[in-house]
């Protein structure tokens, strides 16, 4: 039990609420997640609302040559960021399924959101 508590208390939840290209929020959120992981924190990502579009397969660089986020998403595993939660309702609203996404994810029902926030020691919202 003590071990579980210690583990949970080092966990960081990074909420990503923006898709690629429209703003720098997605990239900043991913950067924050990578920094936390590089410093040994256990990081969970939650793709929430519009953020679920960050995971859509087939995305690339922006029309003005903006760097795409796919390589960064694929790099997450190298930082041991393995828990990717996605807002199931946001997927449904967009007609997307988990199989349309470029990484394996864990769908999260609306009723699980509050508990997810509560169980992480630190929540960073992007």
């Amino acid at each position: 039990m003590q071990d579980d508590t210690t583990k949970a208390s080092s966990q960081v939840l990074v909420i990503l609420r923006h898709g690629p290209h429209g703003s720098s929020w997605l990239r900043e959120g991913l950067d924050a997640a990578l920094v936390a992981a590089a410093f040994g924190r256990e990081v969970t990502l939650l793709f929430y609302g519009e953020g679920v579009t960050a995971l859509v397969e087939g995305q690339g660089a922006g029309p003005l040559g903006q760097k795409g986020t796919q390589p960064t998403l694929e790099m997450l595993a190298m930082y041991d960021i393995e828990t990717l939660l996605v807002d199931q309702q946001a997927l449904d609203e967009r007609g997307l399924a988990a199989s349309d996404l470029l990484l394996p994810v864990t769908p999260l029902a609306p009723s699980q959101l509050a508990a997810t926030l509560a169980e992480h020691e630190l929540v960073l919202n992007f």
Partner: protein
Amino acid sequence: MILHTLNRSPTESRVYRQALAAMGPDDRLLLIEDGVQGALPSLVRHFGDVSGRVFALREDLEARGLAGRCDATVLVVDADGFVTLTEEADKTVSWF
């Protein structure tokens, strides 16, 4: 208990819905900056689900001339009250 802060008006941004959906049964919501618009009697219905747990920052209300126009269900706090809310919470999550 988590303290959620919201700095956007419910008429301008749907982010308040994301905040509400992520709130637990004991969590509190503090309206700051443009978020205090949501404390107006005509808009406070957006926060009906968390009524009694909605706070608004006095300084931001005053700066917008809204201090006397708040709905009676909204708990008005000043900067010190904000600090107290933060201390009482396990953590703070900001919605913007």
